């Protein structure tokens, strides 16, 4: 999964496109229907829902279905006993697999939300305030973008320790610059509309202009961005756990499971294969969904133009 891309699924520059998509969110029900109407959208929704269900029901079902809690010991390490054998400490792989998705999904959603809020706030501020404020915010953006996401996250985690909130904040903040760019561009286009100018002339409070007029109008590009960033959040948090810098033992977590069990990949592969497959399905699902949302908003645009 490559991070610093400006390409969106239809192959257009995101900033250019978001300019055209300014009113895409005006009829949200349409978007849901349009997403579902595409085969990609349907498959994306189904795959994502499948893993999200697994992630949240799994922890409850794990002891019932496997007979072991995620931290209980079933056998010696790396044995074939039970449905999917044991892990590096002799715990049930099946049980840990069922329990291992909840934190990943929760943290990814939270990190994406942080990224959207921080990014949108700075992007709108930059666009709305303009001038020096705009320049400072966008230069800070460039600096953050110059450090690869993973390297930045590693630095922060080493300094602050691998706690949950650090993961969420760090991944969120690495998303913020790109979201700020998108929301800045979208805001700039709205600002120049006549009705905003009129509202300003009539001295409507700025906060009200922002929340009544601007926010709804950038929701379209932001929703596309949200799907894409969610995919990247999942990948980044799973990667950090895989590197040993994310979730910490004895937590049952898919990324960490891969780290713990890969030394025995050839003799007891389930401890690696199950979490890999789950992460793959989840990210494919969210990516298809993001693509479908982009097409749905783009087709709105096509109709209007």
């Amino acid at each position, binding site marked *: 999964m490559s991070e610093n891309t400006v390409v969106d699924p239809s192959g257009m520059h995101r900033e250019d496109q978001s300019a055209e998509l300014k009113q895409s969110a005006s009829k949200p029900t349409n978007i849901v229907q349009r997403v579902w109407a595409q085969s990609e959208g349907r498959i994306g929704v189904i795959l994502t829902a499948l893993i999200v269900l697994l992630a949240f029901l799994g922890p409850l079902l794990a002891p019932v279905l496997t007979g072991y809690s995620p*931290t209980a010991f079933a056998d010696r390490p*790396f044995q074939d006993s039970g449905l999917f054998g044991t892990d590096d*400490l002799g715990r049930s792989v099946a049980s840990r697999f069922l329990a291992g998705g909840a934190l990943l999904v929760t943290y990814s959603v939270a990190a994406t939300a942080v990224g959207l809020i921080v990014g949108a706030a700075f992007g709108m501020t930059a666009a709305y305030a303009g001038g020096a404020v705009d320049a400072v915010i966008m230069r800070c953006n460039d600096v953050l973008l110059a450090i690869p996401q993973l390297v930045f996250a590693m630095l922060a985690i080493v300094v602050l320790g691998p706690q949950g909130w650090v993961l969420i904040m760090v991944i969120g903040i690495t998303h913020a610059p790109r979201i700020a760019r998108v929301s800045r561009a979208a805001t700039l286009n709205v600002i120049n509309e006549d009705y905003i100018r009129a509202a300003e002339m009539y001295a409507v409070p700025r906060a009200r202009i922002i929340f009544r007029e601007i926010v709804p109008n950038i929701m379209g590009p932001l929703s596309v961005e949200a799907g894409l960033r969610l995919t990247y959040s999942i990948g980044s948090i799973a990667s950090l756990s895989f590197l040993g810098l994310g979730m910490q033992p*004895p937590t049952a977590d898919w990324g960490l499971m891969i780290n713990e069990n890969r*030394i025995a990949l050839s003799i007891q592969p389930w401890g690696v294969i199950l979490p890999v497959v789950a992460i793959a399905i989840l990210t494919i699902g969210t990516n298809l969904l993001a693509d479908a949302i982009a097409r749905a908003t783009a087709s709105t645009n096509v109709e209007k133009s």
Partner: protein
Amino acid sequence: MRTGTGLRRVEQALTRRGILGGAIGVGSVGLLAACGPGPAAQVDMSGGPQRGGALRVGLSGGSSADTVDAHIPVNSGDSARVINIYDTLLIRGDEFELQHRLAETFETNDDGTVWTAKIREGVTFHDGKPLTADDVVFTFERITDPDDPKSGAAGLAMLDEVVATDDYTVEFRLNEANSALDDALGQYAMGIVPRGYDPENPIGSGPFKLKSFEPGQSAVLEANHDYWDEGPYLDEVHLLNFNDTDAVINALLSSQVDCVGQIPLSLVDVIESDERMRILNSETGMWLPFSMRVDKAPFDDVRVRQAMRLVVDREEMLEQVFSGHGRLGNDMFSPLDPDYPSDLPQRTQDIDEAKRLLADAGYPDGLTVELVTAPIQAGAVEAAQVYAEQAKLAGITVDIRRVDTTTFFGENYLSWDFAQSFWYTRNFIPQATSCALEESSTNETQYTDEDFADTFYRARSETNPRLRGELIRQAQHQLYEEGGYIIWGFGNQADAYQSYVGGFVENATGLPLSGYTFRRNWMGEVS
């Protein structure tokens, strides 16, 4: 690789073995990929030791700080080098018994204040000079040099002076009685070096001479054919450093090396099932304890400490952490010491008793403690997780705080309230000297009991073995009842080697590959 001929030989050796490896296939260069049945070369090991060949030893770790100085070995690779280049007066053998090497005899006077060594005659250094009492005197002057004390100096604090009374007799005069000086000298960091020794030109009297050395990368040792004892059979030993355990195991499976020390115990069964491989599974006295600060709440209450010990299911601990390759611990160290009190009842998990003790100590609703762990040794972080799981049963919540090794041994080392530790095999006197007295340099539990110290000092100066044994058992019993360590087991040392390598035997010291005594190894015929 910058240095000359020796390393070229490494490459030649690699190519030669490469032919053997080639028969096994590229697939073997995988994460244990070659563990399935593969075509193994026929090896005839029945003929006994044969001369010739080079043994390639895979070591994990190593850095540019690696050394060949006889007296400051730090990591495992350093010990592999000094053990083979130098000889000591005494050394621990395969059964952890004290063997006489350069000292034919080593005896104390009646009160334990003077020890006399009779040096073996006819031994020469690598440069051909004979080894005499004067070299022994120089060696101990160098180790205990007050301006630059070496690794072994701490254990020789009682040494007043070392005097050569004739060419082959040395007296060790002590400023206080010590009945265990033989143990202190029986360490690999006590190698005898010639007067005027320069670590840049490391001359010893060991079975191998240093041929080339690239710190952090490799060392080549060549046979000392004038060695006074059995062996060496090999022409050369190549010590090759790899980044980590995975890399070194893959090097073994792809026949890039002939043997590796200390493989993860969870992989023992797997590697053993590969018919090209042999496993050396040695029982040792290595321990991986939890340490509780006896001066800090809640562990300052002996009832809490005993409760913390009673929650451990030691059998399960061995199974999960060491894959069953180890022996049970009974909250006392030095299991290979002849005076280890093996008659004390084995402590087992007793949740009810633990809860009762906790309630008595004022924790009727259980207890929450933080356990600081770090990957200080294979199995450490795993043991912490197993402990946390077991302690739950008694209402003890163990929060695991995982730090990196540098942090663990950093400024807060010795002040973690509840943490872990790792020790190699040692007998009671040196072990307690290191970790159970006020003066100990690494007293992780801050255990400074006066009664214990009194018993210990009496034991250390007692030269009558029977009386000393009784004192040691008494001291051990005190640790069993109130010590700060949770000693749940002693892990085996597992090494792996190719079936064509001969001469490896189980070794209890905890040093890998038969205590790194490569003089006994030989290469079988591959047909």
